[in-house]
């Protein structure tokens, strides 16, 4: 029997609606202007997410999420498996690159004000993706189960404790008890490889769907002046440019991972005092430092409580930014831009401060 490949192709095309999707991609236009470069940040995040999935599955083949087995299993990955240390390094570095690009993506959208009507929901799903990415990093950090990861997790999961009534419950939920134990490890692993992937895919689907629904934003100035912005088709003009960027990012990531591969300390001792230089991942440093500068007690409440409340208020405010910035082209819009710069400087200064 001879199989007519054309017919097979047509069958799939028909069932999966490939032609309409393809036609859509050729019709979709990406505006070309001086800020167009930032349109590439979103797809770069997707590249790193894909790398996380591939390397994460590879690590999970040999990782053991138990008190006795975790540290040794990561050690075995690093020493016994072909290029296992490189796989681990790529996973760890790709997490860093991914978060860095998520933050860049967010800032670019902040300063170009692309969150303005009708893209409020896109911004809010994006904020959720930021939080989920950071929780990915936080849960992943514990998995190697060495002294540093144990201490960082103790500090991190203790933060909700500062909030009266509900805080204690949140901490106990995160830890699976009053302390960070083997149960915490198992729970974090479950979140890291099962729950968070499901959550991130769900939110990502909505995020990308919204981007398609609204199309790419044009610069605020052009929109106000009703100027026509030149554009290029998404396929192939834009996507080919994207592929070039992916190639460079991939090469850079793999090279950095090769040169700066992470080490692995001995298994954490739950009874030992905290080691010197306990630090969270770099993207938590400014929060870590913020918590540090508040005094123990501030009047009737603890300083930690004030800090946590302030941070929560900031996060909620950023989440609802599109509704706060109701006049992007006016004075208020400009103030919000300055606040963005201020926030960025704050985060950078505090991160550096925490390292001193």
């Amino acid at each position, binding site marked *: 029997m001879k199989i007519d490949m054309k017919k097979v192709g047509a069958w799939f095309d028909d069932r999966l609606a490939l032609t309409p999707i393809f036609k859509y991609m050729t019709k979709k236009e990406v505006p070309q202007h001086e800020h167009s470069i930032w349109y590439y940040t979103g797809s770069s995040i997707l590249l790193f997410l894909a790398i996380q999935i591939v390397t994460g599955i*590879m690590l999970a*083949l040999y990782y053991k999420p138990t008190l006795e087995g975790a540290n040794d299993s990561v050690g075995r990955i690093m020493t016994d*498996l*072909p*290029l296992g240390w490189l796989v681990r390094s790529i996973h760890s570095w790709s997490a860093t690159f991914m978060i860095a690009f998520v933050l860049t993506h967010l800032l670019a959208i902040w300063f170009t004000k692309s969150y303005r009507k009708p893209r409020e929901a896109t911004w809010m799903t994006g904020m959720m993706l930021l939080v989920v990415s950071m929780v990915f990093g936080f849960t992943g950090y514990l998995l190697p189960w060495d002294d540093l990861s144990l201490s960082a997790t103790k500090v991190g999961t203790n933060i909700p404790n500062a909030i009266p009534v509900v805080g204690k419950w949140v901490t106990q939920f995160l830890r699976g008890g009053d302390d960070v134990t083997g149960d915490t490890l198992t729970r974090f692993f479950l979140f890291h490889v099962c729950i968070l992937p499901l959550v991130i895919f769900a939110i990502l689907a909505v995020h990308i769907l919204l981007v398609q629904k609204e199309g790419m934003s044009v610069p605020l100035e052009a929109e106000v002046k009703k100027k026509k912005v030149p554009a290029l088709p998404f396929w192939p003009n834009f996507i080919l440019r994207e592929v070039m960027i992916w190639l460079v990012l991939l090469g850079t990531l793999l090279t950095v991972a090769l040169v700066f591969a992470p080490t692995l300390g001995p298994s954490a001792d739950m009874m030992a005092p905290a080691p010197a230089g306990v630090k969270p991942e770099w993207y938590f440093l400014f929060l870590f430092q913020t918590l540090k500068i508040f005094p123990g007690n501030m009047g009737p409440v603890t300083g930690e409580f004030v800090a946590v409340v302030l941070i929560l208020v900031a996060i909620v405010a950023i989440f609802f930014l599109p509704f706060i910035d109701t006049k992007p082209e006016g004075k208020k819009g400009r103030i919000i831009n300055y606040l963005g710069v201020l926030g960025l400087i704050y985060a950078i200064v505090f991160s550096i401060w925490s390292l001193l």
Partner: protein
Amino acid sequence: MRIDNAYFTRRKFLNSILGGWLGTLAVTFVSPIVKFVWPPYKEPDEVKLAFADFAGMKPGEVKGFPWGAKPGLLKRAEDGSFIAFIGVCSHLDCNVSWMADKKKFFCACHEGWYDENGMNIAGPPPKPLRRLETSVEGEDFFVRKPGAGAKA
């Protein structure tokens, strides 16, 4: 098709180079992944045991030892020599047990039987138990795959 001012015939050529190169690059990415997913964990070629653990065995007695991740079975023959088997059924990989009273090896999975020399005598097993070679070297007791050769 070729029209004025377009590189379409050239394009086909360029596309094949591009596609071919991308494909080759993809293969070089896949091969380390494949190596990681199928790591070279194999049965050992030989294991070293302490002879003291086995010297006291009586003729006809059977004792276990670890052959990698498989159970090894060591039997002392009537003449005092050792016979080693891999205690894994030749049918579908179950571990077999030594029935001291019957002087037979038994596989409970599908009721397979082997005689005391490891020959398959009843039930589904298609082949005898796999045999290993033994040698006493000073304090050490080596068990090897046949043909693995002694390390001098």
